[in-house]
């Protein structure tokens, strides 16, 4: 085993200058910019035709704003708590918006249950929904993973869950922007299902993915 003074010596001898991380708010803004870019690219392929009409419905508008804000706040919280010396209370930042988002979905279920129309679920629409889901969540998740890799030795699970929540909320916003999901079952499935799927996958694979992109010197140690 190498002694501690020897270790210090070798670390100091091989020291390379590093670039400091930008403030967490800036980094969150960069990630959100990427999210906006992805959404804009998807919008080129066509947003849902009845969007302006649907936005007049307060429940829909509040729900979409809440999911978007959940995404923004969760991303900020993820970048904040990935730093070692920030308070864990930042985890509560997206909580109010998350509650609003989930309760608008619940409210829609209670007051205005729209069952599937006679045609049932259209296969074409479902495939397009999946395409949107993948095209939004995959690049955003990867970007988040790489940007937060320094959190691997600190709070991997918490940071992954927060990052996944951000991705899930943005993806849900994208889905309601681009696809006419009016049947309540579809809204439930595509909003909650996506959120649960992404957060669950993040929680399960987060640690493994982090150890894959983690700073190299930790690996040599392990």
């Amino acid at each position, binding site marked *: *085993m*190498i*002694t*501690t*003074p020897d*270790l*210090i*010596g070798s*670390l*100091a*001898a091989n*020291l*390379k*200058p*590093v*670039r*400091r*991380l930008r*403030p967490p708010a800036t980094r969150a803004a960069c990630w959100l910019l990427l999210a906006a870019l992805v959404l804009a690219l998807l919008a080129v392929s066509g947003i849902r035709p009845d969007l302006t009409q649907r936005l007049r419905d307060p429940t829909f508008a509040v729900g979409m704003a809440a999911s978007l804000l959940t995404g923004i706040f969760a991303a900020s919280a993820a970048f904040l708590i*990935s*730093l*070692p*010396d920030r308070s864990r209370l930042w985890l509560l930042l997206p909580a109010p918006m998350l509650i609003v988002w989930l309760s608008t979905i619940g409210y829609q279920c209670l007051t205005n249950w729209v069952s599937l129309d006679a045609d049932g679920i259209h296969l074409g629409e479902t495939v397009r929904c999946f395409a949107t889901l993948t095209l939004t969540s995959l690049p955003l998740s990867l970007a988040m993973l790489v940007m937060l890799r*320094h959190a691997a*030795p*600190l*709070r991997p699970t918490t940071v992954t869950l927060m990052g996944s929540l951000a991705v899930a909320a943005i993806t849900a916003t994208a889905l309601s922007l681009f696809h006419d999901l009016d049947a309540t079952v579809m809204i439930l499935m595509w909003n909650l299902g996506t959120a649960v799927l992404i957060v669950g996958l993040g929680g399960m694979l987060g640690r493994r993915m982090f150890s894959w992109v*983690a*700073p*190299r*010197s*930790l690996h040599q*140690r392990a």
Partner: protein
Amino acid sequence: MTSGRRHRRGWLTLVGDPSSPHAAGLRRASADEAPSLRYDVDWSILMARAQEGDGVAYRRLLEEVTPYLRSLAARRHSDASDVEDAIQDVLLTVHAIRNTYDPTRPFGPWLVAIANRRLVDRLRRQGRMRSRETALTAAHETFPAHQANVDAGTSEGRVLERALEKLPPGQRQAVRLLKLEEMSLKEAAAASGASIASLKVATHRALRKLRKILSIRSDA
């Protein structure tokens, strides 16, 4: 922000007129109240230099924080080698994520947060390992040792010893070398000076005689 105010207080003592009694009082107060604060400002500067690639500052910083980390690690680990391992783990983590330190913020909380996370992770890993693996104790190590398995004290062993004593010396030696010490014929011949053929004969006779002695005993 508290850290900003603290920094300013630290500067006050530095730029004041050193000869004035007021400055002396301030200096004493700052030295008495918050010795860690002075370190903290120093460490912030050292770390900021280290981020720019200053190896000397970095070495000084790591050497200065090591005793502090040792005291943190000693609270959670009792074994000395565990403590050293934990310190090295923390130092490596600090090295790996040194770009996350923001020099406008105090260094202490950053270091302590990293140290605590690594120490707790380490304890968890040890806990998991202990639930699955059993450490070897002195008792486990004694079993493979030859001496521990010689069962001299049992009654069967004593009976055999006594039966062996009744054999003529040549046959006794042959049984001892070939059967009890498990030598080969060639080794036994070299050890005793007898020929291989005579050893074979002696062993054969000795076993027949032992069988007789032991069967008489068991009949009785």
